[in-house]
């Protein structure tokens, strides 16, 4: 495996990577799911991203070597590192950190300079995921996005700051600068629109409609009490009506800025007509090429642009005779070492972090192994969280949500409070301790497994499996609802349906669980301070059934 270890070669690689020839006359830049990561970070892509049913082995459900083959990515280079988990630690040390708004800003400016009129679309999950975003009530990200030059955005985790805060930002901070679009958000009483369904922007004389699709399952995956008067859902019919209305208004290009998750977008693209491209997010799939979906009206491109500020999607359309006739697409990785920091953005970030630096920099422990989260089942970061919960709460079992955000650390790195907040910074961070029957534990695992492995994407919510500590189980993703989870064991003994177990957890969605216990970062910080050194620990993974040969898993 050849890695670029000297600066000259890295610079040459950068030049090649970011010298993207302009094509056509309408360009759209797309970022999504940055999860408030203003600073460069490490982010390891998954080695488990299972597809079942019709999704078996199809993008995004390919990992590792299979991923490189599926997209024709050269093994061993910078892009192979950006798109896969392969050889992660060595490659990360070689290529350095990814993302960071100062570096992203340089890339956005470079692309906008070569593509006059290009717009920057933000797919959401932008305001949540860091200590500073939480402590400033999203203000750091709101200001950073204005500085970055975002033109249009849609929503998911944004809603966990509450409906009033979202509307305040839309009406004050974003007025005349950034449009929030979401055709699928309506009031719960008379189903009135809450946001503009779409906007039409003139790019080089061509009317381009951007239709918004917020995360359909926000009131289910996140606390409903934060947006009690808003209803979401996929709203396929509403999408068709919005697309038709935009076309009737004269749009020659219609794109959807979506937070559906990629499997949902692929299904939607096959059923709704008149969409040229769906720019997708939520499932954090960094896809080097769009999937082309055929529907009764023609073809729709479906992209997904990864997460954590690691990528910028560049779509160039050739629009002639009132329609898109050709396209070029590239998902550019943002390597902080290959893109100089934009001065203005770097200064802004320094300023916004200054009041919190001391708190963020607290050294909690040193990790001997790599820490990461992303993957269908426990990552090493999650393992650490559930181990900490069991120890600090004196519980038998711990659950941690299958979030797809959360940055990675390399062996030998110091775990700071900032890193811990990268895994945990949410507006409902309370820890819980619950006496749960064995039967209830099974119900919880089955419920989440169905959200992940239902063969119909419209019944999926797009997170990963709940992370589990203490309890072992087997999982058959191909089985039906209620039949996937089996062989639940605790310390060598079978879990009994009628017996009660002490279960620790965090991030409760019910209103009744508000303030149920101290914030998870305080609980885990106590554990880390006491441990000082975190050894590399085995992952508590389920034994999988029926997944042999699935290109969505590599061990």
């Amino acid at each position, binding site marked *: 495996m050849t890695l670029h270890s000297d600066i000259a070669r890295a610079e040459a690689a950068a030049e090649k990577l970011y010298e993207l020839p302009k094509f056509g006359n309408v360009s759209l830049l797309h970022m999504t799911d940055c999860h408030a990561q203003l600073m460069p970070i490490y982010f390891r892509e998954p080695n488990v991203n299972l597809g079942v049913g019709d999704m078996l082995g199809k993008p995004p459900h390919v990992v590792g070597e299979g991923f490189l083959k599926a997209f024709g990515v050269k093994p061993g280079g910078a892009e192979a590192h950006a798109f896969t988990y392969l050889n992660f630690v060595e490659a990360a040390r070689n290529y350095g950190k990814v993302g960071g708004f100062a570096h992203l800003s340089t890339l956005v400016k470079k692309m906008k300079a070569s593509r006059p009129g290009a717009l920057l679309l933000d797919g959401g999950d932008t305001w949540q995921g860091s200590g500073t975003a939480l402590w400033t009530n999203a203000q750091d990200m709101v200001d950073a996005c204005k500085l970055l030059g975002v033109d249009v955005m849609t929503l998911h985790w944004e809603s966990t700051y509450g409906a009033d805060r979202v509307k305040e930002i839309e009406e004050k901070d974003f007025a005349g600068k950034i449009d929030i679009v979401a055709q699928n958000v309506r009031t719960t009483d008379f189903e009135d629109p809450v946001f503009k369904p779409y906007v039409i922007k003139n790019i080089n004389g061509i009317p381009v409609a951007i239709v918004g699709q917020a995360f359909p399952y926000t009131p289910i995956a996140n606390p409903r009490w934060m947006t009690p008067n808003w209803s979401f859902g996929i709203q396929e019919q509403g999408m068709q009506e919005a697309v038709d209305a935009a076309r009737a208004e004269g749009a020659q290009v219609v794109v959807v800025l979506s937070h559906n998750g990629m499997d949902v977008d692929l299904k939607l693209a096959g059923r709704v007509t008149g969409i040229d491209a769906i720019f997708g997010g*939520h499932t954090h799939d960094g896809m080097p090429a769009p999937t082309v979906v055929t529907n009764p009206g023609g073809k729709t491109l479906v992209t997904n642009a990864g997460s954590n500020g690691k990528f910028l999607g560049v779509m160039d359309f050739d629009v002639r005779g009132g329609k898109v006739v050709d396209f070029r697409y590239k998902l550019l990785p943002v390597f902080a070492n290959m893109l100089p920091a934009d001065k203005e953005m770097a200064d802004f970030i320094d300023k916004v972090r200054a009041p919190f630096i001391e708190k963020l920099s607290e050294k909690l422990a040193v990790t001997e192994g790599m820490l990461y989260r992303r993957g269908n089942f426990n990552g090493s970061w999650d393992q650490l969280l559930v181990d900490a919960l069991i120890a600090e709460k004196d519980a038998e079992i711990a659950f941690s949500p299958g979030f797809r955000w959360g940055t990675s650390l390399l062996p030998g790195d110091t775990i700071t409070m900032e890193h811990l907040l990268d895994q945990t910074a949410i507006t409902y961070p309370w820890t819980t301790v619950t006496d749960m029957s064995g039967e209830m534990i099974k119900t919880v695992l089955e419920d989440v497994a169905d959200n992940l492995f239902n063969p119909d994407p419209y019944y999926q919510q797009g997170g990963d499996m709940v992370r589990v500590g203490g309890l072992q189980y087997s999982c058959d993703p191909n089985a039906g609802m209620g039949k996937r989870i089996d062989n639940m064991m605790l310390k060598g003994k079978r879990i009994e349906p009628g017996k009660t177990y002490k279960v620790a957890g965090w991030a409760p969605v019910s209103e009744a669980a508000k303030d149920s216990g101290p914030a998870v970062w305080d609980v885990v910080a106590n554990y880390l301070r006491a441990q000082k050194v975190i050894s590399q620990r085995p992952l508590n993974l389920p034994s999988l059934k029926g997944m042999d040969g699935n290109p969505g898993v590599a061990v």
Partner: protein
Amino acid sequence: LAEAAWNKSAFDAKTLDTAMSAMGAGKPVESADVQITAPDIAENGAVVPVGVVSNLPNTEQISIMIEKNPNMLAATFDIPAGTLPDVQTRVKMGQTSDVYAVVKADGKYYMAKKEIKVTLGGCGG
């Protein structure tokens, strides 16, 4: 107030078959001309929007039933001439269930069904 008296035996029925027969629907045939608009996953099991459209000529009545509810018949709408066979309401659902739309058109009964999932929630990408 309403023309027909409240159909107690249909609303009290504990099985789908009993409810159907109390409505005089027998075993309705599945029809693609009956369409249910409802979420795939309920945002709130206490308030699940369900809409029914019938494309069958001379639709006289539309009923909504929730298979796993203790009382499965939720509502029956009588559609007089001049009113469109297109109604929406919101129902309670205790658990994941098939929802049935039963349509009476030209004296015959037809139906469609759709699964609506009720989930515990909490996850995220």
